[in-house]
């Protein structure tokens, strides 16, 4: 474990050293490609606005994710419980999934404005499909021996859902959540690029427009760290659930 950590840190330091060397030796101008030292300086001196904008984006992401989760889970449960709902909604889901959500960003900004709402809706849209589809899949894929058990016990559809299908669907749900969490930060950033007055993506664009490339890079790094942290959190949660199987 510590061996892997050591190797990761070593790799990171090597990359940073090479990056700085490239910038220094090739004398690349700061506004094209800043070196790690310049970026670190920008990170530090702009830490207040970075923090503020990150918090804003993060809050919207959280709300969008919560919305996507609630709608996604409800959809999956409804489809699993009702044959009629399944027949009616399945083609709609398939069609809707074919529409690239990021292409909707300008439309959403037009309809919902520059504020938080359009971003929240974007995140909700992007997280809804992976969660609903993965959970639904997991709910329907009950292994035959357990289907038999339900029948042998005379279980109602509802009880079969609670005691068998839901626990069985947990791994599938987490796959969907992992995917959703991979797309969510992208949705926020693209939404903010299209039109925003606040947020990390907005800051990136602003810095770029003013030629403050180190700040842009700093924002990028903060975004990357944030996305990674989010993904790792979900992964850790999923792994903890997995461990409860043994």
């Amino acid at each position, binding site marked *: 474990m510590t061996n892997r950590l050591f190797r990761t840190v070593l790799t990171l330091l090597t990359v940073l050293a090479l990056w700085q060397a490239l910038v220094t030796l090739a004398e690349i101008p700061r506004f094209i490609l800043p070196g790690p030292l310049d970026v670190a300086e920008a990170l530090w001196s702009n830490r207040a606005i970075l923090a503020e904008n990150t918090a804003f984006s993060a809050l919207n992401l959280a709300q969008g994710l919560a919305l996507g989760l609630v709608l996604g889970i409800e959809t999956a449960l409804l489809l699993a419980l009702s044959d009629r709902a399944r027949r009616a909604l399945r083609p709609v889901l398939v069609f809707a999934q074919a529409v690239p959500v990021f292409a909707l960003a300008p439309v959403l900004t037009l309809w919902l404005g520059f504020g938080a709402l359009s971003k929240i809706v974007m995140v909700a849209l992007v997280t809804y499909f992976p969660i609903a589809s993965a959970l639904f899949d997991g709910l329907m894929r009950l292994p035959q*021996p*357990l289907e*038999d*058990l*339900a*029948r*042998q*016990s*005379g*279980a*109602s559809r509802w*009880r*079969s859902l609670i*005691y*068998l299908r839901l*626990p*069985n669907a*947990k791994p599938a749900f987490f796959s969907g959540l992992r995917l959703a969490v991979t797309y969510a930060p992208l949705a926020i950033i693209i939404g903010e690029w299209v039109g925003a007055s606040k947020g990390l993506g907005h800051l990136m664009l602003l810095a770029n427009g003013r030629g403050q490339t180190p700040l842009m890079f700093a924002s990028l790094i903060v975004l990357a760290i944030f996305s990674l942290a989010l993904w790792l959190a979900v992964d850790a949660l999923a792994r903890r659930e997995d461990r*409860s*199987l*043994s």
Partner: protein
Amino acid sequence: MSQITFQGDLRLGARALISGLDVTIPTQGWTALLGASGLGKTSLARLIAGLPTPARLDGFIPPDPMTIGLMSQDGQLLPWATALDNVTIGARLAGKPPDPARARELLSRVGLAGRENTRPAALSAGQRQRVALARVLYDDRAIIVLDEPFSALDVLTRQRMQDLAAKLLKGRTVILITHDPAEAVRLAERAYVLHERGATPVALPPEIPPRDATNPETLTAQAALLQRLASASEASIPA
């Protein structure tokens, strides 16, 4: 409760798997249905238990599924639940409140005292079948169908499980479906050899089951049964 009979052909679509069946399963006691693999024994078990299967048996009216307790080779354990929860799951699925004290007692009777909170992944194959057996006992159905529940176990574990099942299911109506002549001879009061042209009743030694595996009578009967089984399946292989 009346006895179960099946007569006629066991079909899969247009093809007859077993034709000319004429089997009577009396109440109380173990009846073994012995047959080679691939014959359709599990289809028969599923038909009796009321589970979906493409196989059909002419004129067979299955008993009420709620009166049948099925124990299969798989054990049907929930991987995410403890042994205790696995024992009570049948009842909970039926909407009945669980009785953990009774479940604990049954787990103890199958030799798993102290393992109530263990999950299936941490149990051996034999131990998992013990949990399955405890569940069968917990559900307490009138007719028990054992569909090759011990075939995946090693010889010693299998013997121990056979003895345990024989002890705990004594006096109940048990249909034992198996491909192992030794198992049939050790545990059954009545036995049929299943083959493509029907079911032939066979005589078993007078010793009360579970029969002693080392008893010469048992071994002779076992050998005879094995021969019967072999010739039955040979006869159905086209020349």
